[in-house]
């Protein structure tokens, strides 16, 4: 019995944290966030040196065969440094999808390259959560048609994994004929998302598993977004506490005012249990798959609500400075905003959690 990070995971966490402290300082984040493609090759290179891209690739395909909890540990650090690097889709979801539902050929073709940091795959499964603007991709006669929104790790992807209307996953090269890729811009300029539109595009489908693999991706994606939110929330709380200890008003640090102190305490009290929940959700994804979907919903919805509160409150503690671009606090604020909405906002995810438990009947 050990509920917590293993020694290896702590070493990993600290190594990633050190790496990002060096390679993802705020000035670099700022520079990347000003670009159309924010993803930083420098940072990805440094993460590659730590073998991050190989984390979730099985050992037989040249990877490290690590777990989602390992990935969550990394995700938290990436968010803590508002890192503009590809991760969620290309390092986490794509290897999981290929491992769990890829053909042998797909695995051999892509997994070793992913592990070596030589290939990146974007993932577009948002229509399996909530189809907006009539989005959705149809698979018929071996071809894909329709639109997939919110493809993650969009820029620089060599191929995309897309879920069709039945939840089956398809691998499509970025340069496939009939595929149009359009950049979407969100509040969070440290992430890259896009829209894919398919006009009878040849596809290389993964296993026809009735949507099992895409559901697994949804779970994993939610856990990693929750971990991201956790890291961003942690950073914001620390920044608020630091700022409150330094900023003086009326002759004393504002952190000595009870109202400010209690704002910080409420952030901490709501934030801290999220950590254990995220760890749990990540752990059961591998160790207890039957609990994974519900735990992922809980982690995603709770961090979504808690960190919206944290993002707002930490900004308020910073006063006017928090509202400016000067401190860059807003990068974390927006990262939390992104994490909340992508792959289902809290209400949508809770509705799924209710359905998973058989609680949903006609209202």
């Amino acid at each position, binding site marked *: 019995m050990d509920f917590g990070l293993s020694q290896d995971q702590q070493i990993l966490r600290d190594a990633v944290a050190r790496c990002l402290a060096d390679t993802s300082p705020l000035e670099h984040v700022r520079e990347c966030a000003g670009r159309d493609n924010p993803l930083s090759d420098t940072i990805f290179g440094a993460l590659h040196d730590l073998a991050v891209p190989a984390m979730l690739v099985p050992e037989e395909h040249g990877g490290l065969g690590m777990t989602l909890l390992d990935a969550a540990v990394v995700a938290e650090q990436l968010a803590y440094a508002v890192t503009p690097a590809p991760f969620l889709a290309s390092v986490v979801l794509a290897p999981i999808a290929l491992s769990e539902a890829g053909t042998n050929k797909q695995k051999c073709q892509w997994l070793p390259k992913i592990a070596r940091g030589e290939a990146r795959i974007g993932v577009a499964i948002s229509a399996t959560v909530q189809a*907006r*603007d009539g989005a959705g991709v149809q698979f018929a006669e071996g071809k894909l048609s329709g639109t997939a929104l919110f493809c993650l790790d969009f820029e620089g992807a060599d191929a995309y994994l897309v879920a069709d209307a039945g939840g089956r996953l398809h691998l499509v090269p970025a340069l496939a004929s009939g595929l149009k890729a359009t950049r979407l811009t969100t509040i969070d300029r440290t992430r890259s998302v896009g829209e894919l539109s398919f006009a009878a595009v040849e596809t290389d489908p993964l296993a026809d598993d009735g949507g099992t693999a895409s559901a697994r991706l949804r779970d994993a994606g939610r856990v990693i977004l929750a971990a991201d939110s956790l890291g961003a929330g942690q950073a914001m709380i620390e920044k608020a506490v630091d700022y409150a200890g330094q900023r003086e008003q009326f002759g004393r640090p504002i952190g000595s005012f009870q109202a400010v102190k209690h704002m910080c305490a409420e952030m901490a009290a709501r934030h801290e249990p999220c950590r254990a929940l995220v760890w749990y959700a990540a752990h059961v994804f591998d160790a207890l798959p039957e609990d994974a979907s519900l735990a992922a919903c809980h982690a995603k919805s709770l961090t979504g609500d808690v960190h919206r509160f944290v993002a707002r409150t930490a900004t*308020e503690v910073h*006063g006017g400075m928090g*509202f*400016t671009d000067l401190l860059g606090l807003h990068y974390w604020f927006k990262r939390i905003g992104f994490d909340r909405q992508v792959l*289902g*906002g*809290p209400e949508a995810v809770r509705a799924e959690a209710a359905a998973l438990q058989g609680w949903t009947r006609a209202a």
Partner: protein
Amino acid sequence: MDLDYGPQYDAFRAEIRAFIDAHRHLAPPSAIRFSRPSAEAIRWQKLLIEHGYTARTIPAEYGGYGAAPDILKLRIIAEEFSRARLPSGLANQGISMLVPTLLELGTDEQKRRWIAATLTGEVVWCQGYSEPGAGSDLANLKTSARIENGEFVINGQKIWTSTAKQADMIFCLVRTELEASKHSGISYLIFSMDIPGIEVRPLKTMTGHAEFNETFFTNVRVPVDQIVGQRGQGWFVANATLGHERGMLGDPDALENRLQALIGLMQQESIGEGRAIDNAVLRDRLVALQAEVTAMKCNGMRILSNSLKGEPGGMAKLIVKLQSCEVAHQISALAIDAMGEMGILYHRSPRERDGGAWQWNYMFQLGLIIGGGTAQIQKNIIAERGLEMPREPKLARISDEAKGAAGMQTDRQGAA
């Protein structure tokens, strides 16, 4: 209780409607925030002043319409222009803050020179109150003005000067008596933004836009007669107008407009087969916010009635800013949630809704909660003035002046 305005007011309302019908084609497009009024906007403003729909009670000799005060007519004007979705006249810091100050404390020369030109929009002002080290604690300000050869020589830095880039002039608080106690050493100066030694740097905010500036003064020389009120009395001069700004920030029409936009959004935004408004959880939040907005509208009418009777606004008035900002922020938050993943689109992305206005508002309203009298300070005011709760006791190490500043509870930290 009488919700009718009575026949003479109905006639007034009819007159405005007729005016709007006849002149709608002359109205400029909705004002872009923080910009200098266009020639079109200035023409519209003059037309409005001429008809008494703005600058209504300002004496005609200073360029206003010169009507007797009638709050109800002001309210009707606001209602009708809001309903017609037309700008009901310029609203900038010169008009809302400098003009009342000059009317009350300016010399006749100052009034004649500045008020009319400000009202028409031909002279644009910015406000120089806040400093990086003097947010909630305004009395702590450091920008200094020493006298040299019959001129003030100003050095220092201001922040949150929202229209500084466009402004012709600034009204500015500076410390003229270094040795005096914190409040009594401040003076209120007005001077041109073209004087050498002024540098304006855009201040980008979390919204990604530069709605504000930082303004730096290096040996800026201003004639000594460009002072409003007495030397060392600037604190009281400024306070005479702070109330005006506080009032501006809680506008029930604005809340209602945001709510209506939210309802429209939720009726259009699709989720799978349905619409956002068909989702029971989101709809419940919508109705809850509708109740809050209705309550704030009613509260506004109550304050208005009290003013008509010459009664103080009391608690109903003290809570307006805190509650309005909060409700407005929640409206934007619900809009983002109703849009789901679409809610995060911004920066002119494809598929972005309403030009990113919801996200912009969500962030900017947070700025309003922080600024213009932070939520924390608003709560102190409600508790101490409204509920008459005891003040914080004296601190052992703190000077009496700092305590005085705390007592004034004034904040200049944020967004106008």
